[in-house]
């Protein structure tokens, strides 16, 4: 009887360990799978040419990702530029100033914001943000825009990034010991002075990590951007011009990808680029956050 129980325990342990190892290796498996499929195009063309050429003519075998990379960069930059001040101020307010009741009421709402599917953000962008920019903002500033632009995509992405940054920053602020705040207040500093000179200074690495996580979220977001950014494979000249970010390129061409030679390879290379960049950002910010966690313990 006892032997059977111990045997069960041992078998279960081996099985579980196997799953743990598999899930730990999944990142490498994904990277390898994409690399394997992207290899045909990497064998023919130098990576530098693929990354920095602006000529995208799949039928002629020209696969230059530069306009798409720059498109992603612009859209992400606009989103982060909008998202950082708003989410930092909100996170500081919720963690340092707000009444406990306010905090408890807003937490589920911010979770909900994180849970809304990106296609819903996309449809909202098409219904609200795009007309706003086309009919009001662009004419007001004396330019023309179809509304499907870097700015529209940036605004919608910013809203999607809010919960990511707020969540991480609140966690980081919570990890700062109250003694530090008390010491500062005891010296006669006002609440805001305490926040500015003590809390935010101490939280700076964590805030950087939160923003980097936000960047990587915006960088890889697909559906909303696909619906709003306009998808014109040209370098955008201003925020009112359309852009064609990398994830939108991948999602938009799934139908044709098997009929044109090397097309599927090129698109999987695009996914690989996306993966490598996001992975870099993520590893960086997680390392910062783990260091903070260790410092507390």
């Amino acid at each position, binding site marked *: 009887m006892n032997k059977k129980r111990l045997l069960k325990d041992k078998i279960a342990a081996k099985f579980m360990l196997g799953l743990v190892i598999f*899930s730990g290796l999944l*990142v490498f498996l994904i990277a390898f799978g994409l690399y394997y499929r992207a290899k045909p195009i990497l064998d023919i063309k130098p990576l530098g040419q693929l990354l920095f050429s602006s000529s995208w003519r799949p039928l002629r075998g020209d696969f230059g990702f530069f306009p798409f990379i720059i498109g992603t960069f612009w859209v992400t930059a606009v989103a982060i530029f909008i998202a950082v001040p708003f989410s930092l101020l909100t996170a500081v307010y919720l963690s340092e100033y707000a009444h406990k009741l306010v905090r408890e009421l807003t937490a589920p709402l911010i979770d909900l914001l994180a*849970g809304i599917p990106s296609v819903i953000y996309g449809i909202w962008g098409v219904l609200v943000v795009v007309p706003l920019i086309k009919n009001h903002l662009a004419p007001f500033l004396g330019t023309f825009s179809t509304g499907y632009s870097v700015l529209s995509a940036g605004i919608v992405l910013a809203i999607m990034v809010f919960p990511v940054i707020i969540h991480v920053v609140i966690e980081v602020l919570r990890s700062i010991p109250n003694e530090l705040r008390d010491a500062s207040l005891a010296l006669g500093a006002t609440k805001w002075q305490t926040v500015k000179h003590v809390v935010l200074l101490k939280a700076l690495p964590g805030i950087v990590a939160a923003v980097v996580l936000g960047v990587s979220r915006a960088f*890889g977001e697909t559906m909303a951007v696909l619906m709003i950014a306009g998808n014109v494979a040209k370098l955008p000249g201003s925020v009112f011009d359309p852009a064609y970010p990398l994830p939108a390129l991948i999602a938009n061409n799934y139908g044709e990808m098997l009929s044109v030679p090397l097309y599927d390879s090129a698109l999987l290379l695009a996914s690989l680029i996306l993966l490598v960049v996001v992975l870099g950002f993520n590893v960086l910010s997680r390392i910062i956050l783990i260091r903070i966690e260790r410092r507390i313990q």
Partner: protein
Amino acid sequence: MNRARIEENLFKGLMLISTVTILTCLLLILGTIIVKGLPAMNWAMVSQIPKGGFYLGKEGGILNAILGSLYLATISTVLSILISLPVVLYLNVYAKKGSRLAYFSRFSFDVLWGIPSIVYGAFGFTIMLYLGLRASLLGGIIAVTFLIFPIMSRAIDEVMRMIPAELLEASYALGATRLETAFKIVIRQSLPGILTAVLIAFGRGIGDAASVIFTAGFTDYIPYSLFRPAATLPLAIFFQLNTPIPEVQERAYASAFILTLIILLVSLSCRFLTKRFTKHLIK
């Protein structure tokens, strides 16, 4: 002193404005979807599949996409539980405290959580090419399972880590093996957290479009086999919105309303379950 007070009030004001702005965004999004979607709703939308000329504004509904999404998300969620639960139990019951493996696994879940869903879609597609599958329900399930199981594992792990070590030691002292402790003590103790994690993963799975766009394909019929393409709600919204015909766009709003309703339901039941099941726990 006066300057300090002005600065204090200025920043307090800015903080309030930011918080209100962000919450307003949420309300605006939900409001827009309800205002646009509710008038476009009708019984045919949820009870019929697309009939001939549906995409030109003729009769039909999106039952194919609703069922497709439900099948896809449910099966993926079940598969994710089968992967996540053993993994997280291993990390919390079997692995030694501070073991490198546990550290590395938690790190990799965080990293997997950050990988964009389109990359999971592309990876799912490479697996399908490797296995010789076409766009099908099974393909979609593979991609979505990879997408949601790290989220689920991370969420379950958060709760299981909170279980006091004394509880496990008490169980060992009574002669239980680690496996028995895992299933009879740890799972029971973290049940509310597990349920919440399952719901979060389900919500993520049902709402994601980028991972199913290559893998599940799209069809006007209700999927009856794992090897057939399956329609999904997010993609139905996307395709309907992209047509130039106003009647079809109206349907996109109605579909968006249905999807939002499902997400709201999932989110509400999370709250409810956490409240309801926490009262039986040993604290």
